[in-house]
């Protein structure tokens, strides 16, 4: 196989995994009718909490254990992200604040938290690393070296990649084949009807948003501890990834299974500017590759337009997306 194509795949799949986590969490949230624009902030919180806990454990424990390191990072990441989701749900569900504005405030807050405390860990350096967490999170599940080309392109990634895929499949069945999923979807489509049917709208919105935030946060964790080789630096990169995850949710038309291939496709599109010219043996000017970088967003816009033009019921956003539910308002 062409070596550039190989390099492209190996780059695109991990990239896609970051936003697959982010998008899955946001699908859960949006299916409850909450449009949480705080995804970038949540990914910051999750990524930083995961990194910081692993880093401090490695540094301060006299005899650090790999298993403890992994579990600690996961717990801290999910807890911090869910805390972000909890702030959002408390403000939008209980206090009925505007969802868009609350989400944007959460993004500002999460980015601030991560980078503020990040500077303490950096302690003057431009970056700092957690090598043990990196080796643990990039550990391969399969004996990829012995599997040739398949080993490199399919089985050669850190285990969170496969967790993401399995999670998407499980999420699909929960959402479309279980009572729980049906209730959740009804809350997002028409909360008044769901309420009349005895479904606790508040509980579903809270749970979907907080669990969704936890899943989105894993995207941040995967970014820092595997994709970015366990290195923390002050960066705006996670924010861009968070918005890309929001874009992916639209692209998938709110279906977890589409998130799998959609995420990898976004990964390919994102790295298109670097690898396609390589593959074709072209030398592209930098400004051309700048323009190529808009492709994932343009594709998302096209999907958004096509979906709204075709008006197929099953592809539409949840009907009450972005609206708070007040029982007393009826």
């Amino acid at each position, binding site marked *: 196989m062409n070596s550039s194509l190989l390099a492209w795949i190996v780059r695109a799949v991990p990239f896609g995994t970051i936003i697959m986590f982010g998008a899955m969490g946001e699908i859960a949230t949006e299916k409850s009718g909450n*449009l949480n*624009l705080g995804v970038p902030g949540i990914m910051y919180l999750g990524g930083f909490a995961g990194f910081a806990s692993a880093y401090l454990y490695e540094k301060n424990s006299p005899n650090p254990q790999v298993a403890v390191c992994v579990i600690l990072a996961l717990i801290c990441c999910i807890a911090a992200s869910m805390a972000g989701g909890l*702030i959002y749900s*408390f*403000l939008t569900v*209980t*206090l*009925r*604040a*505007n969802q*868009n*504005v*609350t989400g*944007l*405030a*959460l*993004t*500002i*807050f*999460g*980015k*601030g*938290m991560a*980078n*503020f405390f*990040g*500077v303490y860990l950096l302690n003057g350096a431009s970056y700092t690393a957690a090598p043990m967490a990196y080796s643990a999170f990039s550990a391969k599940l399969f004996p990829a070296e012995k599997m040739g080309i398949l080993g490199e392109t399919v089985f050669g990634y850190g285990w969170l990649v496969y967790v993401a895929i399995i999670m998407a499949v499980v999420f699909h069945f929960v959402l479309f084949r279980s009572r729980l999923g049906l209730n959740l979807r009804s809350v997002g489509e028409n909360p008044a009807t769901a309420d009349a049917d005895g479904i606790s709208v508040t509980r579903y919105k809270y749970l979907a948003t907080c669990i969704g935030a936890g899943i989105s946060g894993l995207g941040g964790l995967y970014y820092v501890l595997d994709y970015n080789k366990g290195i923390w630096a002050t960066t705006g990169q996670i924010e861009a990834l968070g*918005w890309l995850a*929001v*874009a992916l949710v*639209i692209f998938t038309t709110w279906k977890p299974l589409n998130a799998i291939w959609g995420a990898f496709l976004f990964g390919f599109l994102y790295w298109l500017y670097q690898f396609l010219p390589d593959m074709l043996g072209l030398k592209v*000017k*930098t*400004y*051309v590759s*700048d*323009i190529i*970088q*808009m492709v994932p*967003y*343009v594709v*998302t*816009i096209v999907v*958004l*337009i096509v979906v*709204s*033009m075709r*008006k197929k019921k099953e592809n539409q*956003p949840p009907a009450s*997306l*972005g609206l708070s539910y007040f029982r*007393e*308002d009826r």
Partner: protein
Amino acid sequence: MKEPLIRIIKRQQPPLLNKILIRVIAIVLALVVDAVFIYGVTGLNPLAVYGVMFKGTFANAMRFSWALRDLVTLLAIGVALAPAFKMKFWNIGAEGQVLIGGLATAIVMVNCGNSLPTPILLIVMCIASVVAGGIWGLVPAIFKARFNTNETLFTLMMNYVAISLVSAATNIMRGQASSLGKLNMATKAGWFPKLWGQTYNINILVVAILAVVMFLYLKYTKHGYEIAVVGESENTARYAGINVTKVRIRTMIISGAICGLTGFLIVGGRDQTISTSTAGGNGFTAIIVAWLAKFNTAYMALIAFLLTFLSKGAAEIASTYALNDFASDIISGIILFFILGSEFFINYTLVFRKSRKEAAK
């Protein structure tokens, strides 16, 4: 039937005093939480830190003029968003509209800087920015009007299209140089002249006029009334014979055009250059400003001042105590959460079970 512990009742007309009081309480509470945070992390006396914060804006005339400059940038975008939001059109794309307006300005500056006399050059720059921003606002509006395409997500994506256009254009414009630097450095063509001896006075003046005009436009014109009706209920608007499609498209062109104009003010009057961080997140922060002010441009100025004060103050704290600037994001994040939460207590009252029984007696 079991009576719930707390019932929530919507207030019909919250009294003004109540509104002010609740907001003040929210900000004070937020400052207390921030103080706890500051003390917990740094062990510094929060009051002393807040004192230093004050200096960020008011230490000297220079600082004050910088603060005003940043305030008007934020306010200008807030003013641009007001009509769109009042119409319940969620324009999250201000960041991109500002960038594309700034880009148009920069291109005119570079290409016509030597051939046009200053007043005409400035006018051409202005028109280019307004047209570019207007187009950026128009595109999502057309699709919203024709196919009801979700505008929140559409405008959000348009930001990134604008960013990649700007980074491509800066790449072309800088040529072999490592960075773009100030445009027309030698001739200063297209740079705003000083007004009354101050560099940023033109920006401040333009935005002040914009804010007043927008206030009047929304409150006293037919257009403003149509926007309000469409925002309240699309069906009512249709029933009243308002052409909803027309109002939507017209309003989004205005919104995008003012964002574009802000790009012109930033590039011509503040930075004299263009980069992907020209809008600098103001497009997002302004959304919060516009919403919290309930589209009233006077309140917007107040909230924009509060946020600018906070970020300047946090920068001052950062340099005084060797902390980092990101503290400002945390502090303003917490304040925003509290203000957002306080809206609830303005619009609703809580009735407790016990107090109701007493009332019944």
